């Protein structure tokens, strides 16, 4: 028999290791060649993520990035921390195992709309409703990129793709509505054309205790180019991006001329502020316990051709999954002996 390797003890993670050393973006860049298509929105998201990490106050060794399958899911290879590139759709489940095994880690899940809403939709729902301590970034380009251009669960109805030559029949899922429906405690949206907004959104999502869900609107310049051009291009933003600011009336447009009100029959609707009393505008409160209004906001722009809210839709506190039920360390052989001898036993001889 091969002798077992000499045991090496590792101090438990979470030990006091002094202040977190400062890092820069470069410290988070791995030596792996990034293999997305030139011009892909994923490059700017990766850059924003690596810019945000130094602000998160985390050590490189305490960060784990988990991906499933798809273009976005290759993300772990490019971040110089711990990373796991899993199988299609299962990243939230893999990440749940990691977060439960070591609650001191910062665990990120990165996936696309196909990975997290189609094959992995079930795992996403359950990670969110359990409130596992994860930061989930869904890059929504509304297309299957890595398999070269089929419609995805977020593709608009009627979309013509290789697998839907007569236009897709499926009604799309709205990622934020799905997340809110699963009672996610942190729900936000950002987009690949605004680094500062991405950095701030990622930072806030990471700071949240529990499951944080961020939809990142992302362009696929090969298979779905201009997916969000009507909203996120610099010239369109003023008219089309609705910034959500905690405690403020929801306004956008030139000089804040447009706003959002709650219509009891319709839900959230965009209005000209001039047409309503200013105090009729919906005041954004991400801390509302009831997700109803956040849900109404998530339905405001079913397709990327209408004014679209950006920012934090919901940020509430709920117990973090698995913390209260954390087991102790294995107590060892004596305790095992006590277990084996517990209950009814009898002795011979």
């Amino acid at each position, binding site marked *: 028999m091969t002798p077992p390797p000499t045991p090496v003890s590792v101090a438990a993670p979470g030990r006091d290791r002094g202040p977190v050393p400062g890092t820069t973006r470069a410290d988070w860049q791995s030596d792996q060649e990034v293999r997305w298509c030139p011009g892909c929105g994923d490059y700017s998201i990766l850059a924003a993520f690596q810019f945000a990490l130094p602000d998160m106050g985390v050590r490189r060794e305490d960060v*784990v990035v988990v991906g499933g399958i798809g273009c976005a899911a290759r993300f772990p290879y490019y971040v110089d921390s711990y990373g796991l590139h899993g*199988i299609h759709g299962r990243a939230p489940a893999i990440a749940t195992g*990691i977060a439960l095994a070591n609650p001191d880690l910062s665990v990120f899940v990165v996936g696309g709309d196909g990975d997290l809403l189609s094959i992995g939709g*079930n795992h996403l729902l*359950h990670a969110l409703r359990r409130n596992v301590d994860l930061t989930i970034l869904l890059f929504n380009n509304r297309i299957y990129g890595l398999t070269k251009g089929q419609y995805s669960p977020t593709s608009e109805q009627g979309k013509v793709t290789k697998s839907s030559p007569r236009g897709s029949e499926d009604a799309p899922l709205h990622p934020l509505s799905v997340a809110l429906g699963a009672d996610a405690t942190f729900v936000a949206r950002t987009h690949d054309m605004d680094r500062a907004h991405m950095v701030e959104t990622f930072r806030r999502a990471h700071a949240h205790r529990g499951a944080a869900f961020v939809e990142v609107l992302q362009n696929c310049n090969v298979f779905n180019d201009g997916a969000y051009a009507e909203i996120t291009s610099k010239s369109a933003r003023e008219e089309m991006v609705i910034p959500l600011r905690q405690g403020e009336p929801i306004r956008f447009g030139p000089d804040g001329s447009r706003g959002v009100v709650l219509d009891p029959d319709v839900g959230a609707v965009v209005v000209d502020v001039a047409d309503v009393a200013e105090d009729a505008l919906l005041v954004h409160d991400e801390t509302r316990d009831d997700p109803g209004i956040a849900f109404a906001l998530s339905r405001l722009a079913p397709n990327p051709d209408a004014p679209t809210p950006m920012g934090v839709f919901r940020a509430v506190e709920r117990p973090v999954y698995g913390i209260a039920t954390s087991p102790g360390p294995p107590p060892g052989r004596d305790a095992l002996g006590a277990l084996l001898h517990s209950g009814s036993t009898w002795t*011979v001889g």
Partner: protein
Amino acid sequence: MLDDTDVTVGGSGGKPSEEVTGVVIRLAGDSGDGMQLTGNQFTAVSALAGNALSTLPDFPAEIRAPAGTLPGVSAFQVHIAGHEVTTPGDAADVLVAMNPAALRAELPKVVPGGTVVLNTDAFGERDLRKAGYDVDPRDTGDLEGFEVVEVPMTSLTVTAVKELGVKSRDAERSKNFFALGLLCWMYHRDPEGVRSWIRDRFNGKDQVLAANLTAFEVGLNFGETTELIPVTRVVPPVVREPGTYRSISGNTALSWGLIAAGQLAELPLFLGSYPITPASDILHELSRHPGMGVRTFQAEDEIAACTAAIGAAFAGDLAVTTTSGPGLALKAEAIGLAVSLELPLVVVDIQRGGPSTGLPTKTEQADLLQAMFGRHGESPVPVVAASRPSDCFDAAVEAARIALAYRTPVILLSDGYLANSAEPWRLPAVESLPDLRVGFATEPNHTAPDGTPEFWPYLRDPDTLARPWAVPGTPGLEHRIGGIEKADGSGDISYDPANHQRMTELRAAKVAGIAGTVPPVEVQGDAEDPEVLVVGWGSTWGAITDAVERVRAGGRRVAHVHLRHLNPFPPNLGEVLADAPRVLVPEMNLGQLALLLRSTFLVDARPVNKVAGQPFTAAELVVELEKILD
């Protein structure tokens, strides 16, 4: 199958008692009648009385199938003896039938001349019709040749229990305790053990507790006073090695083996599981032990259960996922990921009848080839099997040893029979259990061309070919792994053709190399010059052992090899097979091990197959052995 008897006077209530060396009792009733509870409790007191024993719970998949019908019959068979037993018995000496359906379904399993105890209150016209009897079997020749004991169990129970103020519908439900009392009297079981168990079990439910206790006492007293049972029976204790014993079922032993592995490896145990029959009891048992460093995660599905366990393994836990055949199919892709990631993972498959939903509560061994090959690509996985209920403990420890030392998923096979069957177990001394500590990587293991120390996640141990296990939280060893093919050593993504060939061969060589740490097979019976060698694996151990002994007692030379390790095979198996003139392979499938033995060793392995949802009886295997010896 009463063994020898020896009548003496004395025993319960001054009635004559006879000593028997062994007896097989079968309890049968509706699935809501509590037959499993009654059987388990009778087993427990028999274990405490020092008997050898083996049990066979046999229940339907429905929680409450239509009452009084044949599909609703739930049975429990126990073999108690004054000598070692390895099977629950070929047939029952005593059948307790709580209704006509139970009688009809179970009578064929009673030996000629056996005792049939009937609950006569359940033999009304409707009950008979539901069981498919046109005429009361007591009035036909059906019961001829049996010793029939007619007891109005329901009414005796209700009359006594109603005095406690219990409604008669609820009172009826205690009738299984009446049956338990009667059995305890018939076999001289210590009633105090049962009483204290009832008090414990129904603590806080005062009325149920009182009703069950009363029914139990009424059953005992009925035995004392009735003229129907003239002789009681004494089964003496078995002579055993000194030690502390307990009664244990396969699933409990397996759970405790996993808990043990956590202590022996000094790692937290992580179970990802999704409820499935007959594996759920492992999830239940492990959920009770957070104090032993156990975390259970009831996942949203089988795939999440497995992938969460993979995540926990990456983070440094001893990770386990438990399931049955359909769940193993769902986990296949994830197990392939674990093969590629080279992380430790124990996958437990409590096999049941298949394919598809199959026979959820019945036993089978038909997942062997799924365990071996049920993944895409060249995806070698070690396979370990348990052979008897108590062996599930050791098999779990062994599966964890291989998983940890070789950083590989390991499939541990048990089955529905082992899962629910119970036997006495001599408790191991905890100091004798193996050291499973493997240690995490803490330092860089490679130097970059520019002289910088770096960590290569796929740089292998030269002996085991295992890669280092560096867990998140360890500074300086940050690395990325994934399901894409990795460059040998660095672990970077690689599509290089020669590298894939090399990595595929390395993964295969790693698993093949485990054979070097596997003990050679021990040949039981006639190791020298056998006329036939019986090769088995898993839960057929008991029936094969018994059958081989019976045939040997008849003067034939028979050898028996029972495999714990199915992949890789033990190093000397080929030699042992080559030396045997005939090889017989009994399996509860259509010849899966036989196929592996034939293809691996070019040996004429002859399959003996049973896929009836029931284990082999020794008698069936005796017939097969005699056939091959003719």
